Structure formats: C-alpha cells, structure tokens
C-alpha cells in the first residue's frame, strides 16, 4: 500500500555522528555483508574483479572538505543511507505497492516480489538511497536491518543494524525517535542533530550530528617541550665542540 500512514507507532531510525566518523567504510562492508544474505535477493556485483566494477550498496560513505570563513578547512566523512522519511516520496510514486512504510515502526521497505523494477522510486528519492539491482531487476534499499533488530535468534547485543553494530568509533546510533527519552532523541537534542535537504519536504527520520566546534589552533605546539631535546654525555660534548668551530 503506497498511501503513507498518518503517523507510525515507533519512528525507528539512525543518528549519524559526523564528528566521530573516521570514514573507515566498515559500515559499508558490514551492510553489504549482512544484507547480501538477509532480506530479499543478494546485493549483486557486476564485473567485480574487472576493469569496470560496480555493484549494489545500501550505504555509502562520502568525504567532504568544509572551509569555514576563518581557520583551516575540515574533512568530514559522510555516511549516506536511507533516512526512512515520514513523507517518503519514494513510497507514494510506486505503482505496484511494492514500496511501503510500516505503520508499526516507520521502516520503509520494498516487497521485492511485487516490484516491477521501474525505478521511479529511486528517481523520487533525493538522497540516492535506492539502487536497482542490475542482476535481479528489483529495487534495493536499506531495511534498517529489519531482520536483525527483531531477531530473537541473535544475542541481545546484536539486535541492532549491522552498520551500527560494526562501527568502530560509535558514529552510528539506532533507536526510536518517537520516544523523547531514547538515546537517538537525546543525542539529536543535545548535539543539534539536523535533517538533510529539508527543502525537499521528505521529513527524514534519521538525523546527522554536526562536527564539534574545534578550538582555535594553539600558537605553539603542545609537543614543543618534547622537541627541545638537550643532548647530554658524549653527544653533548660533541654538540658543544662542533658548535664552537
């Protein structure tokens, strides 16, 4: 059903911390690894070992350089995956009902058995979160690891998305935005979490945390005392003698 629910019970989504992400691509690999054998058809690759490799990924990490008015430029690593939008335009355009937003938790999913692979939903998404699988001819997108988060066969600590679980710096957080006391809601409030491309009117669920403000660069390096090494013993004698010549 492509009519969007007026409201959803939970609003499950991710918080991505642009301050701590080091751009290691671990979440890209973990996401591909888990979803290659989980929900729906595998994420295929074309010509993976050849000269023109390409493949389906549900999560990609970009790197940007931000130049403030004053001070040095900053490098910001930027993971990009589905934002599980509340006003998801990808859902309403779908002619078959394959794309839908779940009433209970707000996750946006594709029923691959009903998808005709028209690609219209990928056109409607501003964030490039959907990729049509070239081998299977159906639309793939982030499932919020729906087959992990409710999976009672997994140990408790693994019942979160693969990308969140794997991130070595804890830059990705999973939770319920409908609950104001959840970790993701508190992080968003404390750190000024923002929406991507709000002008597109998609009302994304996921939030991004801005890089923390860095202090002004120190005039002298804090390592300066360590660098000012006084030679002693024979080296000291040699240093003094050579200095006199």
């Amino acid at each position: 059903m492509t009519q969007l629910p007026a409201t959803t019970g939970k609003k499950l989504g991710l918080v991505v911390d642009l301050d701590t992400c080091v751009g290691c691509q671990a979440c890209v690999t973990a996401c591909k690894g888990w979803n290659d054998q989980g929900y729906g058809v595998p994420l295929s690759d074309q010509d993976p070992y050849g000269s023109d490799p390409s493949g389906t990924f549900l999560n990609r990490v970009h790197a940007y350089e931000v130049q403030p008015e004053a001070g040095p430029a900053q490098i910001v690593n930027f993971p990009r995956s589905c934002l599980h939008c509340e006003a998801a335009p990808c859902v309403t355009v779908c002619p078959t009902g394959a794309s839908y937003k779940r009433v209970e938790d707000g996750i946006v999913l594709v029923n691959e058995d009903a998808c005709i692979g028209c690609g219209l939903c990928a056109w409607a998404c501003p964030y490039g979160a959907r990729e049509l699988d070239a081998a299977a001819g159906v639309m793939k997108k982030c499932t919020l690891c729906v087959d992990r988060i409710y999976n009672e066969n997994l140990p408790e600590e693994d019942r979160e998305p693969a990308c969140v679980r794997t991130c070595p710096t804890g830059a990705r957080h999973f939770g319920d935005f409908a609950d104001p006391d959840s970790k993701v809601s508190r992080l968003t409030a404390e750190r000024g979490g923002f929406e991507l491309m709000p002008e597109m009117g998609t009302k994304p669920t996921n939030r991004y945390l801005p890089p923390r403000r860095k202090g002004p660069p120190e005039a002298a390096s804090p390592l300066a005392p360590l660098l000012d090494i006084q030679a002693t013993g024979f080296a000291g004698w040699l240093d003094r003698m050579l200095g006199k010549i």
Partner: protein
Amino acid sequence: MHPAPSVILFTVLSGLGFGFLTCLNLGLALPQGIGGFLAFAVGYGLAVGGLIASTFHLGHPERAIRAFTQWRTSWLSREGWAAVLALLGTAPVALGAMGGARPGLLGLVAALLCLATIGCTSMIYAQLKTVPRWNFWTTPALFFGFALTGGVLLSDLPLAGEVLSLALAFLLAFSFVRGDRRFAEAGATLGSATGLGAIGSVRVFEQAHTAGNYLLREMIHVVGRKHSRKLRMIAVVAVALPAPILALLPDGLVAMIPAVLFHLIGAFAARWLFFAEAEHVVGTYYGKR
C-alpha cells in the same frame, strides 16, 4: 537523467497516438469507411506501441499488471488505468466512424480519457521535486503541446497545425531557457544535502566509490548533455517547420507527410533533451549536476 531510448520512444509515440485519438474522438477529422479504419489504426498503433516500448526498461515486465493497483497515490498507476480506459472508450467511436457516424457524446468522453492519459504521463515527471527542471508547469504543457500538435498535424488540419506548431516552438524555447533556473530555485546544494553548509563552503574531497554505480548511470548522467546547445536549436526549428510547410505547400499528403516528419524529429530531439538535461538533486552528493 539517463535518456533511455525505450522511454523516449514511448513518451513520444504514445503521446502522438493519444493526441491523434483525441482529435478523432472529437470529430476534428472525419475519415470514413476504410480511411476511418486506417486513421484509428494509426492512432491505436502509436499509442499501444508506445505503451509496449515503455515496458522494455522494466526490471520485471511480466509483473506489469501489478502497476494497476496503486492509483490512489501513483501517477504511473493512474497512467496505466487512463490508457486502458481511453483505448476501450475509443473502440465504439472507431466502429461508429467506420460506419459513417459522428463521434458524439461517446467521442467526447473518449477524448477526455485520452487527454487524461497524456496528463498522467506528464505528471510522472512533473511530480518529482528531486528533478527541479521537470517539477514545473512547463512539463505538462509540453506533453499536451506535443501530443495535440502531432494529433492535429496527423488529422490534416493545416490552419490549426500552423498555429499549434508555432506556439509549441515558443513553449519549447521558453522551457529550455526557464528550465536552466529551476535547479537553483529548488535550493538543493551540497551545503543543504550534507547540512555542512552551516559551517562553511563544502566541496567533494573524495568520492564514495571509485567506479560507477546505478545512481551515476541513471540520475547523474551527464554524457547526453554534450551537444545540448545544438540539439535545442534543432528541436525548436524542427517543431516550428510544419508551419511554413503547411502554409506554402498545397494541402493534402504532400504537405502533411513532411510536416509530421519534422514534427517528429523535433519531438524526439526535445524528448532526448528533456531527459539528458534534467538534473537530479542526488548529483550534489557527488559534486555533479
């Protein structure tokens, strides 16, 4: 956007077909007997042929029947319904015309259904906020313009053909120039796409992947824009040419055939550009348009 040949073929041919059927249903042209049969056959052939071409770019054409289910929200689904109803609604009019009957009220209903189909097709593109150049009134205007001008030319109505061809050429030229401002108006920048614009100016430091992917092929397709200046000229001139042709050549097939041919050349060039020049906002993440 990637200018897929199947989609260009579909939108131009089925547009022309439904435009022609609109004219026939309204009784603007009144071919009778075998002529009537041929006219409606051409209309049906174009419309149906275009619809079939549109399934070529689907990942799973065998499931296409499912596309009829979501008419409440999806313009693509509505287009499917409108097309089927228009083709069914036209059948009795066509049968009547062969027997020499005027289209009447039934024809009016069928014509409205044909127009609805053209409108739904245009809305598939016009609804997309993510492609600002499409997300504008010129998109439905152009789809109606091409369909009806083509239909009138096929109906051999010289005066209407001249007026519509010139008007369409102006609309096309306007849509090119005006469309160039749409992306900036939509307001999507790398700054808003990453939210980092609040800190300073943002540029791509390193791409997310070294090789191509679906997004780059489908939505950030820049190759097709290479000759866009020249193609714009060709499209506008070809669309306008039927006017002098119809004015100068004697009425009948001698004028109609070249007029329709030039119109089609213009329509294909314009439709190629409609896709190739359309910039998707996802391009901002890659520092491209």
